[in-house]
C-alpha cells in the first residue's frame, strides 16, 4: 500500500505537486528551471542521475519552454554547452548528477576556463545530511572544481536557488567569461521554498567589478605609442569575438593602417580577404607573421594572452617591440609580456575609444613585407599541399575544397591535432564566429559534441566538424545525441590511422620512434549507420568534390570519412622552445 502511494507520488512529482499555474511556493527543482528560463535559457545539455532527479522531474513540466538535449556522456554536455556558448556568446548550460556525472564534466569545465567560455553547470549533490559521509555518488565537486571554475557554490537551501543562479549567470558571462558550477543538494531540490519565487537578474556584485571602459590615461598612453610606431602589428585574440568587436577592429586598423594577425581562437574575427589581414600566429601559424613579430616596433595585443604556443621562446620573443595590451582580465597584464601601455577593459569599448585618438596612417611598405614571406610560404608549403602529387588525399585539399564550396562562411568546429591546424591554415574564413576549437586545453574529443552545441546556437549556419580518427573515438558516443536530436551537423573525419600530431613530433624530435600512435580503427561509416547517421568514405582524390557535395547537400547529420595521407606533417612549425623567427618550413 505504502509502496504504491510512493509510486504515484514519484510519477507526479516527488514533492506535493506544485503546478505552474499556482506558483506561490515552489520546490527547489522548479526554482532551478524557472530561474534558468528567467535567464533566457532555451537549451540545456544534460544527463540525469540519482542526485539530480528532482530537477529532471521538474523539467518534465517545462518541455515547451526548455529544450533538453540528452547527451551520451557528461563530457559531451560540457563541450556542447561550450560550442553553443562560443557561437552565440550566451551562457551554455549543463545539468548533470553528482559523483561521476560531475567528474565527467571536469574536462569540459577546464576547457571552458582556459578558453574563456561562459558556462553554468548545475550539478546534483547528495542530500545535505549526507555531505562528507562518502554517500553513494558523493564527490567533493566543490573541492575538485575550485581551480577550474570562475566561481562555484554549493546550495543546501531551496530559498537560495534563484539568487545563486542569477549570480552564476552574471559571473559566467560578464568580464572575462568562464564556467560557473552550482552544486545543489538533493534536499534543496526537493524542499519547498519558504518564500514566493522571485528571480531578479544580478547586474553588480560587491566583490566583483569587471572593468569595461578603460581609463582615459591608459588609452592616451596606448594611442601615443600607436601613433609613434613605424611598424605596428596588431594581434587579434579570442577577446575580440567575445566582445563582439569585429567592426571596431576593422575601423581601427583601417584608420591606422596596421597589419593584423590572429591567434588560433581569434581566427575568423577578420575576413582573410581584408587587405590588412596578414595571417595566423604561433606554432603552426604563417611564416611572415611569426618572423615579423620579431621585426615590428609595436605589438597591439587585443584580447589575447601570449600563450606559449604563440610566443615560442619568450627570451627571444619580440624583444625589440613595445607592447600595448588591451585586455579585460587585469591578471593577464604583465603575466607573460610586460606591457608598456596596458589598457584594461573590454575590447569593443577600448577599440571604439581608441579610434579617435589614433592618427590616420599609411603603412604600405611595412605591410608589403608580409607579402614577401607569403610568396615563399605559398611556394614551399601551401601550393604543394593544395595540389599534391601524392596518391592519397591530403588534409589541406579537403579543407580548402570545403572552404570553396561553403564560400568560407561555414562554422568550422575543429578537434585537436593536425586536422585542427590544417583547418585553421586552409579554411578561408570570411564570417565572424566561424572557428570553434579547444585552444588552451587542447581537448581531444571536443569537436563532435561542440559541433552540435554550435548547431543549436546557430541553426541557420552550416556547421562542419573537422575531426581526426583519434579524436573521434574519444567522444564517438555523441553520434547518438546527434542522431536523436536530428541536428544536421556535418562531420568530416580526416583519417590517417595515426595520432597524427604526436606522430609528427615523434618523427621530428624522437627519431621516428612511433610510440603508440598507430590506430586500428573501426569502420566509421558502419558505426554511423548503426546510430542512424548516413555516411560515406572518400578514398580517392577524384571523388572528393562529389563526396563533399553529397555531405553538404544533406539536410540530415552526415559523416564523411576521408582517407588521407598517413604521414604528412603540419608546416610551418615553431618547435617548442624555438624562437618565432626560427620558424621551420620543412
Amino acid at each position, binding site marked *: 500500500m505504502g509502496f504504491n502511494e510512493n509510486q504515484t507520488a514519484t510519477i507526479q512529482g516527488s514533492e506535493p505537486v506544485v503546478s505552474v499555474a499556482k506558483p506561490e511556493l515552489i520546490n527547489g527543482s522548479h526554482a532551478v528551471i524557472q530561474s534558468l528560463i528567467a535567464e533566457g535559457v532555451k537549451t540545456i545539455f544534460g544527463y540525469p542521475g540519482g542526485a539530480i532527479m528532482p530537477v529532471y522531474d521538474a523539467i518534465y513540466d517545462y518541455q515547451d519552454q526548455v529544450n533538453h538535449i540528452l547527451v551520451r556522456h557528461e563530457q559531451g554536455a560540457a563541450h556542447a554547452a561550450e560550442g553553443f556558448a562560443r557561437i552565440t556568446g550566451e551562457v551554455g548550460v549543463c545539468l548533470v548528477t553528482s559523483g561521476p556525472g560531475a567528474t565527467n564534466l571536469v574536462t569540459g569545465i577546464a576547457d571552458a576556463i582556459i578558453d574563456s567560455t561562459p558556462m553554468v553547470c548545475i550539478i546534483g549533490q547528495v542530500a545535505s545530511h549526507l555531505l562528507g559521509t562518502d554517500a553513494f555518488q558523493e564527490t567533493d565537486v566543490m573541492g575538485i572544481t575550485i581551480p577550474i571554475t570562475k566561481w562555484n557554490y554549493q546550495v543546501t537551501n531551496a530559498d537560495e536557488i534563484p539568487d545563486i543562479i542569477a549570480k552564476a549567470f552574471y559571473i559566467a558571462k560578464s568580464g572575462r567569461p568562464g564556467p560557473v558550477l552550482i552544486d545543489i543538494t538533493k534536499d534543496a531540490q526537493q524542499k519547498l521554498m519558504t518564500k514566493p519565487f522571485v528571480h531578479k537578474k544580478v547586474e553588480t556584485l560587491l566583490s566583483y*567589478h569587471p572593468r569595461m571602459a578603460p581609463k582615459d590615461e591608459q588609452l592616451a598612453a596606448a594611442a601615443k605609442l600607436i601613433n609613434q610606431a613605424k611598424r605596428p602589428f596588431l594581434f587579434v585574440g579570442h577577446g575580440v569575438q567575445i566582445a563582439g568587436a569585429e567592426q571596431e577592429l576593422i575601423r581601427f586598423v583601417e584608420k591606422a593602417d596596421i597589419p593584423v594577425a590572429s591567434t588560433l581562437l581569434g581566427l575568423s574575427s577578420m575576413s582573410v580577404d581584408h587587405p590588412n589581414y596578414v595571417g595566423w600566429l604561433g606554432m603552426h601559424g604563417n611564416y611572415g607573421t611569426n618572423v615579423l613579430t620579431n621585426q615590428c616596433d609595436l605589438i597591439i595585443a587585443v584580447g589575447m594572452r601570449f600563450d606559449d604556443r604563440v610566443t615560442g621562446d619568450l627570451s627571444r620573443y619580440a624583444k625589440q617591440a613595445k607592447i600595448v595590451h588591451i585586455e579585460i582580465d587585469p591578471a593577464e597584464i604583465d603575466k607573460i609580456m610586460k606591457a608598456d601601455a596596458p589598457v584594461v577593459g573590454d575590447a569593443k569599448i577600448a577599440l571604439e575609444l581608441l579610434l579617435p585618438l589614433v592618427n590616420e596612417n599609411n603603412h604600405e611598405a611595412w605591410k608589403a613585407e608580409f607579402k614577401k614571406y607569403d610568396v615563399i610560404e605559398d611556394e614551399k608549403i601551401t601550393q604543394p599541399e593544395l595540389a599534391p602529387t601524392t596518391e592519397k588525399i591530403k588534409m589541406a585539399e579537403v579543407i580548402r575544397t570545403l572552404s570553396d564550396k561553403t564560400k568560407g562562411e561555414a562554422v568550422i568546429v575543429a578537434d585537436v591535432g593536425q586536422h585542427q591546424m590544417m583547418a585553421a591554415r586552409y579554411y578561408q574564413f570570411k564570417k565572424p564566429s566561424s572557428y570553434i576549437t579547444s585552444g588552451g586545453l587542447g581537448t581531444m574529443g571536443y569537436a563532435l559534441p561542440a559541433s552540435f552545441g554550435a548547431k543549436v546556437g546557430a541553426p541557420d549556419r552550416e556547421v562542419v566538424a573537422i575531426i581526426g580518427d583519434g579524436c573521434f573515438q574519444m567522444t564517438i558516443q555523441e553520434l547518438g545525441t546527434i542522431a536523436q536530436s536530428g541536428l544536421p551537423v556535418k562531420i568530416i573525419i580526416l583519417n590517417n590511422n595515426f595520432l597524427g600530431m604526436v606522430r609528427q613530433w615523434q618523427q621530428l624530435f624522437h627519431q621516428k620512434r612511433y610510440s603508440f600512435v598507430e590506430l586500428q580503427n573501426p569502420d566509421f561509416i558502419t558505426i554511423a549507420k548503426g546510430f542512424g547517421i548516413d555516411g560515406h568514405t572518400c578514398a580517392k582524390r577524384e571523388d572528393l568534390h562529389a563526396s563533399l557535395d553529397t555531405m553538404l547537400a544533406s539536410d540530415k547529420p552526415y559523416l564523411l570519412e576521408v582517407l588521407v595521407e598517413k604521414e604528412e606533417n603540419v608546416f610551418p612549425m615553431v618547435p617548442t622552445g624555438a624562437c618565432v623567427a626560427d620558424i621551420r618550413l620543412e
Partner: protein
Amino acid sequence: MTSYTICVFTENTIGILNKITTIFTRRRINIESLTVSETERKGISRFTIVIRSESRDAVEKLVRQIRKIIEVLAVFGYLNEDIAYNEIALFKVSTPIGAKPLDIETINKTYKAWVVYWHLTYVIIQKTGTEEEIFEFFDYIKPHEILEFVRSGRVAVSKSPQTLVDYLPEAEWEYYQ
C-alpha cells in the same frame, strides 16, 4: 628572499580558504604563515598570509590572481616596512622540582613575556612580538627545556592612513604599477 605580507579581504563564505590557497599551490609558493579572522565589517574576513619570494614580480602576479576570486574584495601585498605586525607564541617550559628557577623578572622586563599558566612541573609563557623577537626569547628560554612551542601566524595592519572602507564597496581594480 624577501618576506611579503599579503592581506586578502573576502566575503566570509565556506570554502574561501581553499579557493585562496589553491592559487599558491598551483604556483608552488609555500605559505609561511596564515591567519584569518572577521574584520571590523561583519561578514568580511581578513586573511594575512606571509610568503617569501625572490621576485616581486611573482608576488604581484600572485596578488592579481587572488583578486580574480569572486569572493575576494581586495588584495594588498606589503613589504615588512609597510606594515605594523606581530605574532603570538606560547612556550610550555619544564620547571621540575630542584631545577634552576625561572628568572621571571628578566622574562617580564627584558623579554616582555608573561606566564599565563602555572603547574607544578611546568609553566606556560606567552610572548608577543615579531618573529625575530620570539626567537630571541626562544634562545633565552631554551636551557630550561621547552616541552611545547607554538607560534601564531602574523597579523598585520598597513601603516597607510587609508582603511578598508576607502577601497570598498567600489573596490575598483587599480592597475598595479
